[in-house]
């Protein structure tokens, strides 16, 4: 039994479900977790998290900052933000990216705004990636 729990402050996506595989955008790069993985604690970057519930097709979720703990019983993932394709609209994401890039290129932003805008762009980009046909 190897279980996955994936929660954000605003919703619960997966609670204690048995899984075959999880792939997460970890601190040091893509991290693939299979049942029996060594105990591990790591932080997650903005990116696409995918998992396979037992006997089901792969699910893709866009997350921004998160934390992942692997123990012998399963994987606990806390993400600050998580969206599945049903939550997002391609057009809006495109707009968000364009707007963000324009800001980064043209306007004079202070350091904080700059970081924030960049984070927004990264978030929107990740959002794009979870749609079928845009797999990276």
């Amino acid at each position, binding site marked *: 039994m190897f279980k996955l*729990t994936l*929660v*954000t*402050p*605003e*919703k*619960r996506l997966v*609670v204690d479900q048995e899984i075959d595989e999880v792939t997460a955008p*970890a*601190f*040091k790069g893509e991290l693939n977790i299979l049942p029996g993985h*060594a*105990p*591990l*604690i*790591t*932080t997650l970057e903005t990116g696409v998290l995918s998992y396979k519930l037992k006997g089901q097709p792969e699910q893709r979720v866009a997350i921004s*900052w998160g*934390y992942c*703990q692997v*123990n*012998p*019983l399963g994987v*606990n993932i*806390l993400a*600050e*933000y998580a969206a599945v394709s049903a939550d997002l609209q391609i057009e809006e994401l495109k707009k968000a990216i364009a707007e963000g890039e324009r800001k980064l290129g043209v306007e004079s932003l202070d350091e904080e705004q700059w970081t924030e805008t960049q984070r927004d762009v990264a978030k929107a980009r990740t959002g794009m990636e979870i749609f079928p046909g845009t797999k990276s």
Partner: protein
Amino acid sequence: MASLKDIRARIESTKNTQQITKAMKLVSAAKLRKAQNNITNMRPYALTLRKVIADIAVTKKVTHPLMEQKAEVRKVLLVVITSDRGLAGAFNSNINKFAEAYYKENAGKLESIEFLFIGRKGADYFVKKGYKAIDAITRLDKDISYDLASHVADRLMKQYLSGEYDEIRVIYNEFKSAIAQEVVCETILPIDIQKTSFESTGPAPGFSVDMIFEPAPEQIIAQLLVKHFDLQVYRAMSESIAAEHGARMTAMENATNNAKEMINSYTLTYNKLRQEKITTELTEIVSGAEALK
């Protein structure tokens, strides 16, 4: 004595009021359900986060500026969370009274106490009384989001770390049940992880000292503490929102009942008056007919 027509008008207007309060009650009930869901959804996240921090902090003996108690507390920031709108019974006045009492009690002992208001009602109350606020975050009319909370949290954290304050406390209504709220005053910075974590069980199952840490435990703790703090702010806000809707629901329920009572008593007076009038008219007709005989 009011005429029949006056009373009828009064009954009508009370009925209108009753309809409004009834509608407001239903709206609050729906919003309350949503707010309650928010709190329940947040719980697993909060619990796991807290546990992990405690586990790492204890097993790895890690400390962090956000966790260290200051030797002497001299400058305090009070974060007062109220609602934007009224008609919620004693919801806001409880908070305001509590915050004011706290200020008066401690103003002498501390070098400074400053205020940050979240919600218009608190800000208005204290501004009227001449207290100065470092800022007021109002217009929460849409539901609060985690984004907003983390912005506020970020700012508080920066001010705390730069030494502007030695302690940050938050005063808000805690949601007990749909009909009960409780004013609480919590210290949110420095973070007391010992106090907030070990009320439940010990280390999480499967937690071992041989864990692989990526990046180093110190860095993970630093990141997690920031998130933990964001979450504390978000939690306080969510509790306050749920409590607000609960309080408004109760207040509107009472208002509806009062309106009902009023309508009943008006109706009684109305009927009495009407009967009196009929009796008088009858007597007149009868005596008129008698006179003609």
